[in-house]
């Protein structure tokens, strides 16, 4: 939670109203009894239960005391009682809710069982029952409401705490023999405090209402003390002669209740609930120059052409672009690798290529053609159809593209039914056929199973099969094997290669592992900090011109790495896209960088041998012996 974010929330309309209401309430509670305390008990002669007048805007009560003054003075007692209820309730709830973490497994279970029983019991009934035991009066009302409130808070505490209690850092603390109570105080409570603070704040409003209700029915505050509930009870019998006497405390109850609910809402936003509320959003319409004239490529040759793709995302102070000016062309049957470290923008590029950039991110490109069709000039319906039939997407986690509640065959068939209007039976037949194409044994039976019955590798193959339901000209595979084991990885990559060869589809293979790409692709694009820094044929990787590409290759240990020497690595870390250095983004980590690199950013330029590199001091093959 940064201060700028907090300030942003406080200056929003919600923030201003909430803070103003709370300040007003607190000021009234502090000041009113001091200034008006005497007047509130002063009995004005002769004007019993009088209606509103200039001297008494809300009239007088049965003893002729000014209702407005009394309402303001009652603020202190009403708020203090409500806060006491929540305070005691939170303390009890916190203890009951966290005790299972400290106790052993068995004792913890017993506490949770008792807790469940208490939560099941109606709160108000419990409060009334307890109020009988504690006796009428403010103390009894507070205790009974607090005890009635504690179970639900204890439940919330327990649920959030048990999530944290399983975290790795708690396991680590256990292994370090940190005492249990210390684990509770240092590891568990600080990490569950946000939802609890939010909940407790909005509960103050509810507590205020309940305490007022108890006072109203005579269990709570007793005369000569008075809170809003008590005043409401006094004013109500005369509602027909002087409605204002009942109205004044009612207004205050509503206003105060609202203030605390709003405060809870505000805290939710400040402490990290809302995702985009505080962020500066990128503008939806581009100010970019018109698209470049599309020179028509030989039909059927070029599957994907994208020029100067930029993806902009919201930032805390200003929007920033994690992908800048990425251009690529893919021909039929070609496998192109897109390599980069985490945060380099490679996945955002993949999503933008498939037109899957979702709000509030914005993707823009000068040219975005699939099979020679400019997507930006197409009607949405035609564009959907083109993408649905000619582009397939394979994700890192196959479960993100498979619906766990539908049979695998059914999901596959649906693709053909939607995009090609195939009949149910034909679509099913094709689904089985495609499952066998991705080497799933016994596809007839497997098609009738749910994704959960599939292993990780089989799910990934099924999600590839789903992409093959149409005849895709382009397959975008975003880290298709990162979640898989090495032996399964080999199978899935082999499958993608075979599909590309047999169906002449182009594959854009995105990976953090340059070795995976080197084994499967023919061409490689290397991304760093949102830009393509080098493009080269796989055969030229050994003589890569960019120091980053070289370093990336060198940092992968393989079966021939010298065990007696330290492993190569790249010192430092990639810059964040919102905070890029003025010159070359790799300069701070580069051994070859000089002042020029730190001041001016090199553009992607021809490096010879069919490649391009963005570097002021490229490692040229002839210079390699010196380098």
């Amino acid at each position: 939670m940064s201060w700028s974010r907090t300030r942003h929330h406080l200056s929003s309309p919600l923030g201003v109203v909430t803070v103003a209401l709370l300040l007003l309430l607190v000021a009234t509670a502090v000041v009113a009894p001091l200034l008006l305390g005497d007047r509130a008990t002063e009995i004005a002669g002769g004007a019993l239960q009088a209606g509103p007048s200039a001297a008494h805007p809300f009239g007088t009560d049965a003893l002729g005391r000014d209702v407005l003054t009394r309402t303001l003075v009652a603020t202190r007692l009403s708020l203090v009682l409500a806060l006491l209820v929540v305070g005691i309730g939170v303390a009890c709830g916190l203890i009951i809710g966290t005790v299972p973490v400290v106790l052993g497994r068995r004792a913890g279970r017993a506490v949770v069982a008792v807790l469940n029983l208490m939560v099941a019991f109606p709160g108000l009934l419990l409060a009334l029952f307890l109020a009988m035991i504690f006796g009428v009066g403010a103390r009894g009302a507070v205790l009974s409401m607090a005890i009635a409130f504690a179970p639900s808070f204890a439940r919330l505490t327990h649920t959030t705490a048990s999530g944290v209690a399983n975290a790795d850092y708690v396991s680590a603390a256990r292994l370090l023999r940190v005492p249990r109570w210390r684990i509770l105080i240092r590891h568990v409570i600080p990490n569950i405090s946000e939802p609890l603070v939010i909940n407790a704040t909005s509960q103050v409003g509810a507590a205020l209402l309940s305490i007022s209700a108890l006072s109203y029915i005579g269990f709570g505050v007793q005369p000569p003390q008075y809170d809003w509930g008590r005043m409401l009870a006094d004013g109500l019998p005369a509602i027909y002669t002087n409605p204002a006497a009942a109205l004044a405390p009612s207004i205050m109850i509503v206003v105060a209740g609202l203030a605390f609910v709003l405060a809870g809402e505000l805290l939710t936003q400040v402490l990290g609930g809302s995702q985009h509320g505080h962020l500066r959003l990128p503008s939806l319409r581009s100010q970019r120059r018109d698209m470049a004239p599309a020179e028509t490529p030989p039909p059927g040759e070029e599957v994907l052409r994208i020029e100067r793709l930029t993806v902009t995302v919201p930032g805390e102070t200003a929007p920033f672009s994690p992908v800048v000016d990425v251009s690529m062309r893919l021909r039929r049957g070609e496998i192109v690798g897109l390599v980069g470290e985490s945060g380099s923008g490679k996945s955002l590029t993949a999503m933008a290529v498939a037109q899957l950039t979702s709000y509030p991110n914005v993707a823009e490109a000068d040219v975005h053609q699939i099979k020679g069709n400019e997507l930006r000039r197409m009607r949405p319906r035609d564009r959907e159809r083109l993408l649905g039939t000619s582009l397939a997407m394979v994700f890192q986690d196959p479960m993100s593209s498979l619906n766990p509640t539908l049979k695998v065959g059914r999901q596959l068939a649906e693709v053909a039914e939607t995009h090609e209007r195939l009949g149910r039976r034909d679509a099913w037949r094709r689904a089985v056929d495609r499952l066998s194409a991705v080497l799933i044994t016994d596809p007839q039976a497997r098609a009738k199973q749910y994704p959960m019955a599939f292993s990780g590798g089989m799910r990934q193959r099924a999600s590839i099969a789903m992409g093959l339901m149409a005849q895709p000209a382009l397959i975008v595979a975003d880290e298709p094997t990162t979640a898989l084991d090495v032996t399964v990885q080999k199978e899935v990559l082999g499958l993608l290669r075979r599909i590309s060869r047999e169906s002449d589809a182009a594959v854009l293979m995105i990976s953090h592992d340059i070795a995976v790409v080197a084994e499967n692709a023919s061409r490689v694009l290397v991304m760093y900090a949102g830009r393509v820094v080098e493009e080269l044929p796989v055969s030229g990787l050994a003589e890569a011109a960019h120091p980053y590409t070289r370093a990336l290759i060198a940092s992968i240990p393989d079966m021939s790495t010298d065990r007696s020497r330290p492993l190569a690595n790249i010192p430092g870390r990639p810059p964040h896209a919102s905070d890029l250095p003025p010159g070359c983004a790799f300069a701070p980590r580069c051994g070859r960088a000089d002042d020029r690199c730190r001041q001016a950013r090199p553009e992607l330029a021809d490096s010879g041998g069919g490649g391009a590199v963005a570097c002021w001091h490229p490692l040229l093959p002839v210079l390699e012996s010196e380098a």
Partner: protein
Amino acid sequence: MLELRDIVVRYGHNQGAVTAVDEVSLTVAAGSVVGLVGESGSGKSTLARAAVGLAPLTSGTILWKGAGLDPRGRPPLQYVFQDPYASLNPRMSVGASIAEGLPRASGRQERPARVTELLEMVRLDPGDVHKRPRQLSGGQRQRVAIARALAAEPEVLIADEITSALDVSVQGAVLNLLKEIQTRTGVGILFISHNLAVVRYIADSIAVMKSGRLVEHGTTEDVIERSAHPYTKQLLEAVPTMTMGNGRS
């Protein structure tokens, strides 16, 4: 030394029971690095978690220097988790996290000095002591996690896939660090990974697990050069290599 004898870990009851670790015996001698490889679901992490008590033991014995582990005494084993984004308390400073590992007997005055020493040992700037995990990169966080484990002065360190959540460009630095610490302090390491190339680099001997069982165990050279089990051969073949030639300069 650490001896795991006939370890069985079984989850669930009756027909639904799954045997995650099936009668595995493994020894980590003082000062040695044992690599444990296998695919996800092979039981390698479960075995390691059982060794430190994070997974329930169905049967088998864990021996430390020939005797049972004392649950109250100073623990001879420490564990470094796979995901450095989950293994550090986001609310605690780097220094506080590391200090938690220090033996309780150490005096108040010595603690800051020990934390600085540990930060230097894992090649972090001692000035980072007040930083929160979110201000650090993945590689830096993993160094903090290693420093915290080392603070407890363990005799055996269990490293569970400690580089698989990191980028390859920083993986090398973390592995170099681990190797250097091992040489310097002589701590024994049980190094778990699915990446054979990484295990080959760091381990003296390699154990291969498949479906909860230990299928091969030998010196690194033997397992890599003369693997006996077909599964090990399969793993070796699947390691991606830079086929376009020698990429190392």
